[in-house]
């Protein structure tokens, strides 16, 4: 019996079950990788022959390249808009001492609470009236709205563990409020802000439901294109693009984890 008061046999079963669940979680994600290198148009596992044909097809396809580029553009713009707006809101709510602060904080989380399908058709309807469907601006605005809760949550958490006295000291030493924020507070909430920005980027890049309604044809994002591909005809090119995305997300997780561990040690 260890200090956790868990007997050895129970511990064994626990680790077996836990291991199986982790297996269940991770393997499906990895399974697309070998499939993407399969030479056959039919699905077979394990692949009999390997080749890079699907990656070549991806690179040669104008549609896929455009969709990927569109996703990157939208995600970058979304991040650029959502991060300062969300940071300012988190700061204002933290310092403002408004009577309705609690309600406001909940409202900021609304995009996470309202079912996405509802949001999507609502925006679709609104954009139809304003002529914003299938526009870059429309996409960026919609994604910004969806990304704001992530930025605000992250920055708000960072501000909670930050000693506001430092900002006060800076002001007492002669810095006016924004200068104090920029020179003292911002450098210290850099990590929460960056992690909020990263979440905003990913939220936009992977967003599928709203994009399904308001982006299409030339303005299709990558998830939108994948959605059509999955629905209409499943080609192995999907495996190739999936592999690329998996590699990207695994790298991101690894980098984030390493940074977090470094921060703890450094």
């Amino acid at each position, binding site marked *: 019996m260890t200090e956790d008061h868990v007997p050895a046999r129970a511990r064994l079963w626990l680790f077996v079950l836990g291991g199986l669940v982790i297996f269940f979680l991770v393997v499906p994600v990895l399974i697309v990788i070998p499939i993407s290198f399969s030479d056959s148009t039919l699905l077979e596992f394990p692949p009999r022959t390997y080749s890079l044909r699907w990656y070549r097809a991806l690179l040669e396809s104008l549609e896929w390249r455009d969709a990927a580029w569109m996703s990157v553009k939208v995600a970058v713009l979304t991040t650029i808009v959502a991060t300062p707006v969300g940071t300012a809101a988190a700061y204002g709510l933290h310092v403002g001492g408004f009577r309705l602060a609690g309600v406001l904080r909940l409202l900021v989380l609304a995009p996470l609470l309202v079912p996405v399908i509802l949001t999507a058709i609502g925006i679709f309807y609104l954009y139809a009236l304003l002529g914003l469907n299938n526009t870059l601006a429309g996409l960026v605005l919609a994604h910004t709205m969806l990304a704001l809760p992530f930025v605000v949550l992250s920055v708000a958490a960072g501000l909670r563990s930050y000693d506001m*006295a*430092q900002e*006060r*000291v800076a*002001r*007492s*030493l*002669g*810095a006016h409020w924004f200068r104090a924020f920029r020179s*003292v507070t911002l450098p210290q909430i850099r990590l929460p802000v960056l992690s909020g920005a990263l979440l905003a980027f990913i939220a936009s890049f992977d967003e599928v439901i709203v994009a399904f309604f308001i982006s299409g044809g030339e303005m299709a994002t990558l998830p939108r294109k994948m959605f059509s591909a999955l629905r209409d005809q499943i080609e192995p090119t999907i495996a190739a693009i999936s592999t690329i995305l998996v590699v990207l997300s695994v790298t991101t997780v690894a980098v984030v984890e390493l940074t977090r561990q470094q921060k703890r040690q450094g």
Partner: protein
Amino acid sequence: MADENSPPSSRGRGEASSALPITIRGLVRHYGRMVALDGIDLDVAKGEFLTLLGPSGSGKTTLLMILAGFTRPDAGSIRFGDVEMVRTPPHKRNLGVVFQSYALFPHMDVAANVAFPLALRGVNGAERTRRVQTALQLVQLGDLGGRRVDQLSGGQRQRVALARAIVFEPGILLMDEPLSALDKKLREQMQIELRHLHRRLGTTVIYVTHDQREALTLSDRIAVINQGRVQQIDTPQRLYEAPANHFVADFIGDSTFLPVTVANGVARWRDQVLTPAAVPRDGAYQLVLRSEKLMLGGDSRHPNTIDAEVIETVYQGDSVRIDVRLAGGDVVTLRELARGGQAAWPSAGDRVRLTLDPADTLLVPTP
């Protein structure tokens, strides 16, 4: 330290030309129904070291924060010198502030921390480096400029915070319990250093603490604050020897109290006549028995003598604390210094006689 290295404003003893007097009138602050400050009027002389002393919740920190500009009062006037400051934002008040948590910037090294206010005032280059170095030397940290904040001890951080607050030669320095996080020995050492620093710089200082001994050590005057009001403002000696009311008498010094009635010009505790230095007007009072003023011994020839039974004797190294019970059940405490190798202290159950010199008989009105 040679004078040529000192900042120009510290010439000899407390002659800072930049020190400012402070005038506070009618300062009021409410939090909902709770009254934090109940109309404070205060005058602080140029170059004076004034301590705001009081228990937690007394309003002393609120007062300091209002002086610094971080909290707004509901009403009132604050003048630094001749200039009305109550509506001025904190970054324009040109004050030095030392917070309880030091609030050093962790993402800058020591020198950068101290240089921060100079950079804001447009002081750069060699002049800035020189002044930073001077300030660090003043707080005995001359060669620690390159260190990072997390490499410093508590006492060192305290000094950096101090250096940062004085490097730009403010006319007024505010300090909010800066020594409370240090251990006893370090704290006492820093108190002495602060006294010396104040004498060198001659800045006006407002110091907040709940530690009466600290207040007595450091201050030119002490303002005792309770429940948002100044109970008494006076020199340490007068506060100790002539407290104006029960709260001040209790908060400063180690005392027990006995009820005393003055009727027809005679002061009585129970049915025993008391001989104070001067008999006050008729009324109900409390006799302030400072533990060091009560003496063992004496006989019926001495005024203010009484019999008592020892309850407990506690040896505390430099002195012995004795709790005794008087006729009628009141318990008082006295303290005797351990001097001359005396080993025989009264023990529990012994009957002793206590004497109080009329000059030490202190009466305050019953609250």
